C-alpha cells in the first residue's frame, strides 16, 4: 500500500473523530442520547459484519448476544456493586464466550440453515431470560437507575476528573462513540491482518482456502466469537443507556433490525455502517411523523427499505465504493 493511501486513511479517520467530537455541540441534549443509540447499533452492526462479511453466514440471532451483554452489565452493577465502565468489557467477553460455544457447532451448518438456527435463538432468548427470574428479574427485568454503579445517575450529571460537568446524555454519547471508534479501528485492523485475509479466502472459496492451509473451523469460530464480543459490548451500552434491562427489550425484531442495518450500511463496508445504524434509529421516527394512522408507519418503513435495497443492493457502502473506487482501494475485490 502506498504512503498516499495511508495518509488518506489517516485523514479519513481524523475527520471521523472530529465529526464525532463536534456533533453534540450542534444538537440538543436529548439528541445526544439518540446519537448514542446510533453508536450502539453501529458497534453491533460492525460485529455482525465481521461474521457475515467474512464468512458469508447471516446471523439472525445477534440480539441474543446483545441480551447476554446487557444482562451481564445489569447483574454486575445491580447485584455485585460493580462500576458500569468496568462491566462493558466483561459483558463483551461473556457474550464472546457464548458466541464461541454457539459458533463451534453452529458453523457446521450452511448459510440458510445457520440463519434460521440463529433466528431460533433470537426467538427463544426472551423466554429463556424470563424463566430464570431469580437471576434476571423475570419479565420486569432489572432496574439500574438507582444502582450505585451507573455513572451520572440519578442526578443525570457526570462530573469528570478535573471538575468539568457533562449531562448524562452527552456522557453516554462520548462513552459510546469512544468505544465505537476503538472497535472500528480494531475491525479495520482485522480486515488488513492475516486473519482477515484468511477469512476472506474462506468466504470466497472454502475448499480452496482449506487446500491452502486455512483451518476452516477455527477461523469461522473465531469470526463468531469476535462478532459476539461486539454485540455484547453494544448490549452493555444499551443497558446503561436505558438504565434497565428486560426480556422485552430483546425481541426477535431486534436481531432482524441488525441485519437490516447491515444491509443498508453495506456488507463488507466499515464506516458506511453508520448509515445503517442511523437508518434503524431515524426511519421509524420519520415514518411516524408522516402519519400515525394504524399500519401506515410500517407501510412507509417497508416501502423505503425495499426501494433502498432495489436501488442500492450493496447498501450505502456499495454506493460510496462505486463513487470512490478510483480514489481509494476497494475493501473487497469480490463483493
Amino acid at each position, binding site marked *: 500500500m502506498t504512503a498516499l493511501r495511508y495518509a488518506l486513511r489517516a485523514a479519513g479517520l481524523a475527520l471521523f473523530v472530529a465529526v464525532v467530537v463536534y456533533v453534540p455541540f450542534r444538537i440538543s441534549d436529548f439528541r445526544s442520547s439518540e446519537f448514542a443509540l446510533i453508536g450502539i447499533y453501529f458497534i453491533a452492526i460492525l460485529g455482525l459484519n465481521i461474521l*457475515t462479511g467474512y464468512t*458469508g453466514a*447471516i446471523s439472525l440471532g445477534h440480539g441474543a448476544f446483545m441480551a447476554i451483554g446487557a444482562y451481564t452489565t445489569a447483574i454486575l452493577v445491580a447485584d455485585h456493586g460493580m462500576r458500569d465502565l468496568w462491566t462493558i468489557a466483561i459483558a463483551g467477553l461473556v457474550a464472546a464466550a457464548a458466541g464461541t460455544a454457539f459458533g463451534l*457447532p*453452529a458453523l*457446521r*451448518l*450452511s*448459510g*440458510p*440453515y445457520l*440463519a*434460521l*438456527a440463529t*433466528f*431460533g*435463538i433470537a*426467538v*427463544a432468548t426472551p*423466554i*429463556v431470560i*424470563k*424463566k430464570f427470574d431469580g437471576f434476571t428479574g423475570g419479565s420486569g427485568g432489572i432496574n439500574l437507575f438507582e444502582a450505585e454503579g451507573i455513572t451520572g445517575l440519578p442526578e443525570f450529571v457526570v462530573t469528570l476528573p478535573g471538575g468539568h460537568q457533562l449531562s448524562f446524555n452527552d456522557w453516554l454519547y462520548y462513552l459510546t462513540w469512544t468505544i465505537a471508534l476503538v472497535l472500528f479501528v480494531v475491525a479495520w485492523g482485522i480486515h488488513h491482518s492475516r486473519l482477515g485475509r484468511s477469512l476472506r479466502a474462506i468466504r470466497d*472459496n*472454502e*475448499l*480452496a482456502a482449506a*487446500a491452502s492451509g486455512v483451518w476452516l473451523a477455527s477461523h469461522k469460530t473465531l469470526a463468531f466469537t469476535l462478532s459476539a464480543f461486539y454485540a455484547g459490548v453494544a448490549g452493555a451500552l444499551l443497558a446503561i443507556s436505558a438504565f434497565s434491562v428486560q426480556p422485552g427489550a430483546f425481541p*426477535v425484531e431486534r436481531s*432482524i433490525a441488525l*441485519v*437490516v442495518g*447491515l*444491509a*443498508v450500511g453495506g*456488507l463488507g463496508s466499515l464506516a458506511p455502517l453508520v448509515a445503517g445504524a442511523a437508518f434503524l434509529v431515524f426511519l421509524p421516527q420519520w415514518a411516524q411523523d408522516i402519519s400515525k*394512522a*394504524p*399500519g*401506515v*408507519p*410500517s*407501510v*412507509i*418503513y*417497508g*416501502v423505503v*427499505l*425495499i426501494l433502498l*435495497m*432495489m436501488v442500492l*443492493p*450493496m*447498501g450505502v457502502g456499495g454506493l460510496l465504493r462505486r463513487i470512490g473506487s478510483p480514489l481509494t482501494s476497494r475493501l473487497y475485490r469480490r*463483493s
Partner: protein
Amino acid sequence: MADVLQQVVSGIASGGVYALLALALVLIYRSTGVVNFAQGEMAMFSTFICWELLDRGVPYWVAFFLTLAISFVGGVLIERLVIHVVSRAQALTVVTVTIGLLILLNGAAAWIWKGEQRTLENPFPSRTFDVGGVVIAAQDIGIIAVSLAVVAVLWVFFQKTRVGLAARAAALNPESSRLHGVRVSWMLALGWGLAAVLGAVAGILVAPTQGSFDQNFMLPILIFAFAAAVLGGLDSPIGAVVGGVAVGIALNLIGTYIDFFSDLRLPAALLLILLILLLRPNGLFGRQIARRV
C-alpha cells in the same frame, strides 16, 4: 395414555398448518434459493382477502378459490416486481427485501382492515369424535386431509407435467434450461405464485381454529414453519410435511411431560431441532450439496 394421545392429536393438528407454510417456504427456496421471511405475512394478507370476499357475501368455496387465484397473481407479481430485481444481489440483500415485505404487508393489513380481530368461517363440520377418550375434531382431520392433498397435487405437478419439469429444471440448472428453451425467470415467478397459494390455504384453514385473527396472527406460525422447514430439509417437500407434524407434536409433549419445560416449550423445541441439525446439517430429508471448487 389417553392424555398422551390427546396431546399427540392436537400436536398433529397444529403441525399440519406449520407443514403447509413450511411447504411454501420450501417451494420458494427450491425455485429461487431465497428464505422468504414474508411468507407468513403473504398468507395473512390472503386470509384477509378471503375474509373481505366472504364479508361481501361471496359464497365460501367461490371466495376460497378466488383468494387462491388472487394470491397466485400476487405471488407472481412480488417475484417479478421486487425479488427479480435483486435476484443477482447477495443473500443478505434478498433476505432484507423479504423482511421489508414482511413489515410492509403487516402494515398494509393493519391499515386496510384497521387491526381489529376478525373471524373466518370454518369450512369443515364443527363436530368432534371421541375415540377412546381422545377427542378428535373434524376440523383437524380436514386440515390434515387438505395438507396431504396439496402435497399430492404439487408432487404430480412437479413430477408429471411439462411445466413442472421445466420449473424443476430452471431451479436446478438455469443456464442449460435456458438453452433448452425454458423461460427460466417465469418459472421462478411460478414458484412464488404457488408458494403464495399454499400460504393462502394455510391461512384460511388456520384462522378459524384460532377463533379470530388479526394482522399479527401468522408471525408465531411462521417461526414454527421455519423450524419445520429446517428440520425436514429446506429443499425437501416431504421433509416440510414431516417436519411440521414433528414440531407440532414435540412442542406439546415437551411442554406437557417435562415439568421444567412447561413454560419453555418454544425454546426446548428449537433446541431439539438445533441438536438434530448438528447431526444432520441439511435436515432430515435435505440433500447434501457436494462442494466443488
